[in-house]
């Protein structure tokens, strides 16, 4: 639309726009952010995950299934194995998943009791594992979950050797993709009397978890810590180490050297129930990039396959899982996707979304404890809105759908086991994905990453 000349109060013609033009630097979001912080006096905290519009990721890859040069498998008759064993390196009793998908660590405290029990119930029905979080092991969660991974976090809230012994795997949490290098946050609204008692905290405090483990610091200490946890669990169960995708090549090698069975890579797409807003968008690297680095690191030290990889952060579908597996992951964790299957962001109880000043689909209010659908709350009334049985069934349905999507892709690529998916089954749709992954750009047949590495080394290889 053309600008219109309008008379102003001084009788001079000035250009006014019928359509407002926003500055890219001082966008409405930036202006709002500054004005909110000018009132608040400290950084902003919110839930959910990064709100970046675009990140290099699995959407930049496409599969090239079989045709003449390769034979696909029939969807109806031919088997496509999904069973996944984790912890085969040192543990006597590895975790056995019916499908390479498991529920990631989320605390009782961040999530409601009903949400934790629904996830455990769903995981048991599916034959997969679920994970505790930065709030100890809820007995009802243990009861509901046949395979439960027990996190060892810097805070050690509610840490109990009895819980440790009852766990089916142990996960040493070093960092998370949503907010690597920082500790957890649970605002006072959610620190109910029960949550406070479990965590040995005063009720109602704005709880900040430490980020460094209290009793070990560097990778040399971690070797001893891993031995301690093995001794405490009689070398029965797998030990995982969870890291955010930051300094991946070094961290993966050090975790492998420390003697863990499984490394969980949590990408920058990962979510959190409460985190300083800036961390979601400005820390860690995308999962796809981290995964490629992790696979290369394990290859480098000859431990690829022996030390296993779980890819986490922003996994939304069976296709994402297929791509992660093709790049070298052994399994994927889902967190936000499982919560969305529970009911997160569902257009129910609209008045409660509006009371929080948001719409379903863009809620991000997990930190307030006022979750309209009863998932990220400790309010007994809100929690009742999440009916455990029905919620568990939705997660079962969703993960089954993911598994079928994964099998469709694997069969189309001629794979009788989903773990046989490989980089060769993929093509990149963007230059950056081609460069990050080493997968040829669609329509080309060369590895850009290798070429650029050669150029960087100066040997042209």
């Amino acid at each position: 639309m053309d600008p219109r000349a309008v008379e102003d109060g001084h009788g001079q013609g000035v250009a006014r726009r019928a359509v407002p033009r926003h500055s890219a630097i001082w966008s409405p979001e930036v202006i709002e952010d500054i004005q909110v912080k000018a009132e608040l006096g400290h950084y902003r905290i919110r839930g959910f995950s990064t709100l970046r519009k675009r990140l290099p990721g699995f959407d930049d890859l496409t599969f090239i299934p079989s045709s003449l040069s390769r034979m696909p498998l029939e969807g109806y008759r031919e088997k496509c194995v999904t069973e996944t064993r984790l912890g085969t390196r040192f543990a006597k009793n590895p975790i056995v998943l019916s499908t390479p998908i498991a529920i990631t660590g989320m605390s009782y405290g961040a999530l409601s009791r009903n949400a934790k029990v629904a996830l455990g119930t769903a995981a048991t029905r599916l034959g997969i594992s679920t994970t505790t979080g930065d709030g100890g092991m809820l007995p009802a969660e243990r009861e509901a979950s046949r395979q439960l991974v027990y996190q060892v976090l810097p805070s050690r809230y509610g840490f109990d050797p009895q819980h440790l012994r009852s766990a089916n795997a142990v996960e040493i949490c070093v960092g998370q993709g949503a907010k690597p290098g920082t500790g957890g946050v649970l605002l006072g609204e959610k620190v109910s009397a029960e949550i406070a008692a479990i965590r040995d905290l005063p009720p109602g405090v704005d709880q900040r978890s430490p980020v460094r483990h209290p009793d070990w610091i560097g990778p040399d200490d971690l070797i001893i810590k891993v031995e301690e946890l093995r001794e405490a669990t009689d070398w029965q169960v797998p030990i995982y180490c969870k890291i955010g995708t930051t300094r991946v090549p070094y961290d993966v090698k050090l975790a492998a050297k420390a003697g863990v069975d499984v490394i969980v890579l949590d990408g920058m797409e990962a979510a959190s129930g409460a985190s300083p807003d800036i961390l979601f968008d400005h820390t860690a690297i995308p999962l796809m990039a981290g995964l490629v680095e992790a696979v290369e690191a394990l290859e480098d030290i000859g431990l690829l396959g022996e030390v296993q990889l779980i890819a986490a952060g922003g996994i939304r579908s069976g296709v994402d899982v297929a791509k992660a597996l093709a790049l070298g992951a052994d399994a994927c964790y889902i967190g936000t996707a499982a919560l969305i299957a529970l009911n997160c962001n569902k257009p129910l109880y609209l008045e409660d979304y509006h009371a929080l000043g948001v719409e379903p689909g863009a809620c991000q209010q997990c930190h307030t404890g006022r979750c309209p659908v009863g998932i990220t709350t400790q309010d007994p009334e809100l929690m009742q809105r999440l009916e455990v049985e029905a919620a568990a069934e939705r997660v079962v349905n969703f993960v089954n759908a993911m598994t079928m999507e994964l099998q469709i892709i694997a069969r189309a690529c001629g794979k009788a086991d989903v773990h046989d998916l490989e980089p060769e089954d993929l093509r990149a749709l963007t230059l950056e994905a081609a460069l990050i992954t080493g997968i040829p750009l669609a329509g080309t047949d060369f590895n850009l990453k290798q070429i650029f590495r050669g150029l960087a080394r100066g040997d042209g290889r």
Partner: protein
Amino acid sequence: MGFQTRAGGSALMAGSFRLDCAALSTREINQTLRQLLAEGVRDIVLTNPAGRHNLGVALRGEGRITLEGDAGYYAAAMLEGPSVRILGNCGWGTAENMMRGEVVVEGSAGNATGATIRGGTLVVKGHASSRTGISQKGGLILVGGNSGYMTGFMMQKGVMVICGDVGEALGDSMYEGTIYVGGRIAELGNDAVLRDLQESDLELLDAQLARYGIPGRFDWKKVVSGRRLWNFSKKEMGVWIHAL
């Protein structure tokens, strides 16, 4: 009971056992300790611990275990019931996350002594290093000598007694709990504040010192949380700016 022969061990008398660590792996030592406690052996002596890590991890039940020498990291960690006496020095994380029981170190201990303990009593008769009782969640930590910087960092509950001097940032960001210091405090941590001692404080201190045979007269100081970090507040920015 107690007379059976085992690799590396010999029975002393009914209900007691002597285990030589020298020829055994850490796995074998811990497995044997668990078996002995489960069988009702009440007195176990470990010889030649040689500063080894992870000795006596996650032990349960009743019994007295004596280490005749030094231990490495995580000695008697996650203890649930037994009484452990270490006749030498210890590495990092001694008795970390103890639930119940008693650990007495005759010598000195390294960093993060008694980290995150939730119950029981940990006594270090010598000195402790930095971050003693970090994230302590219950129980009692008693240090006969000095303790390093960030002692009681993010303490949540329980009682800590340091008879000697403490380093900088004592009780930094503590939520609750009480720290008593008999010597000099180099610096109070963020939001750690001094409170006057009551008669009940002195009774507690006298009783614990007498119980563990720690001699001396002390000029006790009592440190608790100022509670200004309990909730985010821009009015307390002076406190928060260091806590973030």
